[in-house]
């Protein structure tokens, strides 16, 4: 009789131990899942906002009549931002190539290659469109395939 009771006690303890272990594991897994989803969401928002903020600031910084335009650079859709310094016109070219947004600051009219620029932010693709009336449309896709859109209206009228 005593032996039987000892067996039941042992089984009960083992069952409780199993329940405890399963609960700990479930809590840990749930925590990990929630943490990773929050971390992913935060990373996506950061990538998206940083990319768009950078481009928007570039527009705002160069908001001068006839100095912002969309064109082609080495076969790629690009944004051109002209500035004049000491009688020489320099051009800041922003484009997307090989999973990165690149920026090239050079004298206008000189020939450069797409690889001559500097890598700025990772992005799958970026397209610029001039919608007229000083309104520009930017569409960027990040490495996770998430697309974000930006409208920019220049005070100077473009």
């Amino acid at each position, binding site marked *: 009789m005593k032996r039987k009771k*000892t067996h039941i*006690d*042992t089984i*009960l*303890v083992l069952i*409780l*131990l199993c*329940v*405890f272990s399963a*609960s*700990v594991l479930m*809590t840990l897994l*749930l*925590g990990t899942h*929630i943490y990773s*989803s*929050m971390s992913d*969401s*935060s990373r996506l*928002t950061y990538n998206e*906002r940083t990319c*768009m903020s950078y481009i928007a600031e570039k527009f705002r910084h160069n908001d001068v009549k006839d100095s912002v335009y969309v064109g082609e650079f080495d076969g790629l859709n690009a944004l051109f931002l002209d500035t004049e310094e000491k009688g020489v016109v320099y051009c800041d070219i922003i484009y997307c190539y090989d999973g990165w947004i690149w920026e090239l600051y050079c004298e206008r009219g000189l020939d450069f290659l797409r690889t001559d620029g500097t890598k700025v932010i990772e992005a799958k693709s970026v397209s610029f469109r001039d*919608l007229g*009336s*000083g*309104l520009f449309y930017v569409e960027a896709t990040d490495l996770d395939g998430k*697309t*974000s*859109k*930006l*409208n*920019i*209206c220049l005070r100077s009228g473009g």
Partner: protein
Amino acid sequence: MRKRIDSGHGLMLFELLIAIGFFAVFATIILRLFISAQQISLQSNNLSRAIMAAENAAECVKAGTEPAVFYNEDWVPSEQNESAYRLTLETVPEEGVSTTIITVKDKADTEIFSLTVKTLQEAGA
């Protein structure tokens, strides 16, 4: 009686029950924290998207074009019947200045973000 006290199993069972009790209490607190953290993260993401949508609409208002008003769950411009979020634009004409209040609302008509845009009106316009 003496035999019961000396029993290792009884003591272990008691220890385990106490451990599970403590675990249950703290797990409840932690789970509530996890869930509220996830909700805050979701709200923050929605707010961030709503700000971008309102800013885009503001730029369209400044340019005098029609902005996208309906957005789906992923904040992609959509048709009205597929929309989860919508923008309302309320224009208040004043002398020389046109004020537009852009409000982003969700399906339950709860305001997520509001932005006021003032546009200078050209003389004679």
